[in-house]
């Protein structure tokens, strides 16, 4: 009997089940312990619980509100404003960092010794300094060194930069302005059609088509044509110095600018590295084969190297975009009113409902991460080498 008992416990399946049962019991006990303590503490401290706080008045003001917000707005509005600001700074950050990363990545690969070393110096400097320090540096040193309102740096008398931020002209659409937007959409669709046509032609006839130039022309011409057809329904509201500050136009606050520049310059170093490693990962034989086929260096880059490099470069770049979105939460240190600053910061201090607010904030970021990784998976599937 004793022997059978031992062998029963030595059975791998039995052990597996036993381990899992123990894990579940411990996990449930742990959660129960925490829940009990939390319930007790919340009651003892007189903190409200539940999601009711979302519908109560927030009771504070926010400096930058992309959507309507006033003193009657609720904590749910605070959440929405915060999320919007996070998305706005991330959107522009991703665009800027892509451009900058692309330039630096290409410069890094240049045969020109000075350029490639300038680029690698940039990468080594920006990658090895904490992003929070860079945000604070932009905010406390670079932008704080801007002149006062009266001495603003001015560009073409329409863009001004000073201590209070960047003032740019604001486009104002009148009736018929939708036609310009329609022009852009048409250009987008047209670009896609051209891309498809060019691919088909290349595969069937082996002839190239200037996709980039023709798409660029579409993007410039179609909205312009729409602009004139609709009777010029667009004008700009220029910022102008009136009294002690600029009126009109759009204002980009120093907080926004500091965060945007810091995120873009920091992430660009990583994007550049991803682009470089993608291009370098393409087998040397591929380039040599392209040359042997008589392709020009430009053709070999466009038709042979880039299509293979993109497959390797894009996944880490998308991950960097996600990092940029997550790093935008560091705005809490300079007070740009994004999700963590206003919701997990101010709203939390006012209502005291830490558990709910931190939970909602984490869930929001988790959702964003999930969406980004879904995009990544879709891309990987699409780009997977089709083996026959």
């Amino acid at each position, binding site marked *: 009997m004793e022997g059978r008992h031992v062998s029963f416990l030595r059975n791998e399946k039995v052990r597996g089940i036993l381990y899992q049962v123990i894990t579940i019991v411990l996990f449930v006990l742990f959660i129960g312990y925490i829940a009990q303590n939390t319930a*007790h*503490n919340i009651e003892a401290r007189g903190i409200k619980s539940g999601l009711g706080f979302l519908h109560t008045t927030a009771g504070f003001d926010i400096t930058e509100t992309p959507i309507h917000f006033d003193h009657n707005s609720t904590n749910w509005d605070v959440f929405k404003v915060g999320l919007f600001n996070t998305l706005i700074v991330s959107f522009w950050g991703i665009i800027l960092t892509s451009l900058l990363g692309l330039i630096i990545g290409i410069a890094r690969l240049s045969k020109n010794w000075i350029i490639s070393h300038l680029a690698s110096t940039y990468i080594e400097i920006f990658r090895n300094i904490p992003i929070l320090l860079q945000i604070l540096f932009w905010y*406390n040193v670079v932008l704080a060194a801007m002149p006062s309102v009266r001495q603003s740096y001015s560009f073409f008398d329409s863009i001004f930069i000073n201590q209070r931020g960047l003032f740019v002209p604001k486009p104002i659409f009148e009736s018929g302005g939708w036609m310009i937007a329609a022009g852009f959409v048409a250009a987008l669709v047209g670009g896609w059609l051209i891309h498809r046509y060019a691919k088909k032609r290349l595969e069937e006839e082996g002839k190239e088509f200037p996709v980039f130039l023709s798409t660029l022309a579409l993007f410039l011409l179609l909205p312009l044509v729409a602009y004139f057809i609709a009777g010029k329904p667009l004008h700009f509201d220029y910022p102008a110095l009136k009294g002690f500050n600029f009126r009109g136009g759009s204002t980009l606050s120093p907080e926004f600018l500091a965060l945007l520049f810091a995120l873009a310059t920091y992430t660009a170093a990583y994007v550049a590295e991803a682009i470089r490693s993608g291009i370098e990962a393409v087998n040397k034989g591929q380039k040599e084969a392209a040359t042997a086929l008589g392709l020009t260096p430009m053709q070999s880059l466009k038709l042979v190297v880039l299509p293979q490099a993109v497959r390797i470069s894009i996944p880490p770049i998308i991950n960097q975009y996600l990092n940029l979105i*997550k790093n935008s939460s560091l705005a809490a240190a300079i007070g740009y009113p994004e999700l963590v600053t206003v919701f997990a910061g101010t709203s939390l201090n006012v209502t005291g409902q830490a558990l709910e607010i931190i939970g909602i904030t984490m869930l929001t970021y988790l959702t964003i991460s999930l969406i980004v990784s879904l995009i990544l998976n879709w891309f990987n599937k699409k780009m997977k080498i089709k083996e026959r």
Partner: protein
Amino acid sequence: MAVYELKHAKQAPLSERGIIAWIRHHLLSSPVNIFFTILSLWILYILIPPLLKWFILDANFSGQSKADCGGGGACWVFIREKLKLFVYGFYPSSELWRANLAIGLSALSVVLVALERTSRKLKIAIILLLPFVAGGLLSGGFFGLIHIDTSQWGGLLLTLVIALIGIVASFPIGLLLALGRQSKLPIIKTLSVFYIELIRGVPLITLLFMASVVLPLFFPEGVDFNKLIRALIGITLFQAAYVAENIRGGLQAISTGQYEAGSALGLTYWKQMRLVILPQAIKVAIPNLVGSFIALLMDTSLVMIIGLYDLLSTVNLASSDRDWLGMSTEGFVFVAIIYWILNFTMSRYSKRLEKKLDTNNRD
């Protein structure tokens, strides 16, 4: 009979050798290249002289107060006068030897662990003992050492404490999570995956907020941690998920033959892991692990947001001194240089390691 003399090859023309050829090929090979060379020289011309002036030529190195600084250059006097704050925070002056000893011991340990000759057992012993020895030395309260509250720790000292404890504490948790994620037991696997993906999906700052405001709710009344412990819990929980993913990468690089061989030898799961799989997997994972430790060192700067005085936040402290207003630029630059040196050394070390381990694999 004709006499043939050996004719030596002519040297390559001047344009194809030496520095001239190098410049021709690397800087002036085509009109576009010439344009970019001029462009980058112009960028350098714009950047270098003002920086050089600010850093060295116009900078002030001697004196005791702000009044000694002038001329538009950097005021390094400020850094010298505030050096104690930057390095130790508010650690009492009479006890600085303890902080120095702790930093010295840590540096010695890091060198010993990084050396190849050190035996694995010694390495593990050092890693396990260091946090307690250094922490005890800093905190005191025994053997006649006066107790120094963690709220007085600061500057580079605090940054190193957080980074070292974060690294040491997150490793075992990350290891278990990695094994859990690779496990065949569905419940253990699900819990591990859930934890890792949850943590990796949120920014560190939300975890730090959680550790500082939500965590106290989780424990019975009367149990209270100081700010440093809370930050350490947040950072450790965060780092563990990343360590787990690095080790998982290592585990996946090990061929199934190794697992099967382990089983065929009749080893239990834990023995198989300890003796066969992990020594290989961790070796593969080391370069990535070092990478995530660099990230951790940079991330420690976030504790300033929950009110700890680490290296980065001492800049604000030092430059808000009424006698030294307007010195934040010098402070930020100085701190940036310290972070940069630490990170750059570590990343170079990891690159060297990667090369070394790579050749070993090919043997």
